[in-house]
């Protein structure tokens, strides 16, 4: 029997018994994002000569946080809620050559960890932030989150959410991230390409991946993926029309001095 090619990067067995199948609900987008990330990492390892040991995966708390130390056979950290980015900062300062990938959810990045997120982008630290945005607090029971679209019914807003949703990409861009992109789980090839670009980028790369929560949205995953395809429009094609749709694509791709490089220059003055 042929096995999935990405299983070589996963821990199928742990000290307490088998770890697979994953803890995610059927059709969860977090598993898909893990699959896309591993495809991107696999291509980088094969093409650029980057070693497996150079990668570090860090996550906070939430559904998305389960992706790191539970399943990944890489160096990884499952850390405190909303504070995955400060811990990534510490890892980067200890060894600036590391390629750090942070898995974070919308609640972890933007609700409880919003301030850390802003300041990581401001410093332009060399981390890749993959934000799995399912638009609600999935792990605690589907409550309304700052990223819930207006009008969506959740466990705590049964008559529809009356608030405006947070635009994470605009926030990352204005805070100073070098690379900002938004994709959905229904765009696999584009997401893999974007993650590869983000990991290769010197500076903060923020990639928001709109993801489905079929359990709390009470919709089959396949239908949610079709909705993502129907309700999104590429930023290159929009040009004034399709404003009622969600914009996807690369919003920002620029060169800005990276924090650890600047710090290294200061240290060189004292040699």
């Amino acid at each position, binding site marked *: *029997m*042929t*096995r*999935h*090619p*990405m*299983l070589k990067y*996963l821990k199928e067995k742990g000290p307490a018994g088998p770890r*697979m*199948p*994953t803890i*995610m*609900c*059927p*059709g*969860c*987008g*977090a*598993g*898909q994002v*893990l*699959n*896309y990330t591993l*495809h991107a990492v696999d291509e980088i390892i094969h093409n650029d000569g980057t070693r497996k040991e150079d990668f570090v995966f860090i996550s906070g708390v939430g559904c998305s946080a389960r992706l790191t130390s539970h399943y990944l056979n890489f160096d990884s950290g499952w850390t405190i809620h909303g504070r995955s980015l400060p811990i990534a900062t510490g890892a980067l300062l200890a060894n600036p050559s590391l390629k750090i990938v942070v898995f974070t959810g919308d609640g972890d990045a933007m609700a409880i960890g919003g301030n850390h997120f802003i300041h990581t982008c401001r410093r332009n630290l060399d981390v890749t932030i993959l934000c799995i945005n399912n638009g609600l607090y999935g792990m605690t029971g589907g409550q309304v989150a700052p990223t819930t679209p207006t009008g969506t019914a959740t466990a705590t807003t049964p008559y529809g959410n009356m608030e405006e949703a947070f635009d994470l990409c605009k926030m990352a861009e204005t805070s100073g991230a070098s690379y900002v992109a938004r994709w959905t*789980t229904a765009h*696999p*090839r584009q997401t*893999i390409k974007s993650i590869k670009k983000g990991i290769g980028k010197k500076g903060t790369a923020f990639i928001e991946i709109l993801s489905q929560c*079929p359990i709390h949205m009470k919709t089959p*995953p*396949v239908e949610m*993926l*079709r909705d993502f395809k129907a309700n999104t429009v590429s930023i290159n094609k929009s040009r004034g029309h399709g404003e009622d749709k969600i914009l996807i694509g690369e919003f920002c791709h620029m060169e800005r001095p990276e924090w650890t490089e600047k710090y290294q220059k200061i240290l060189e003055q004292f040699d």
Partner: protein
Amino acid sequence: MNRLSINPDYCKGCLICVDACPGKAIGASDRVNPKGYTLPAERDMQQCNGCKLCEIVCPDFAIAVEIEEEKS
């Protein structure tokens, strides 16, 4: 012809692979795994072009495509 291999222990029956397949080579089957999830199966593998999209979109790492080497 390409072959499909599905791990019944890992599959959770979300059937995202069935929807993602551009050639409709995969379909839902009557087989159910011990947890009660409907498993996908080969439907018409003549249509498989080896794009491996089913492998990429699977959230549970349960499906794999074996590409047959072309005989020269």
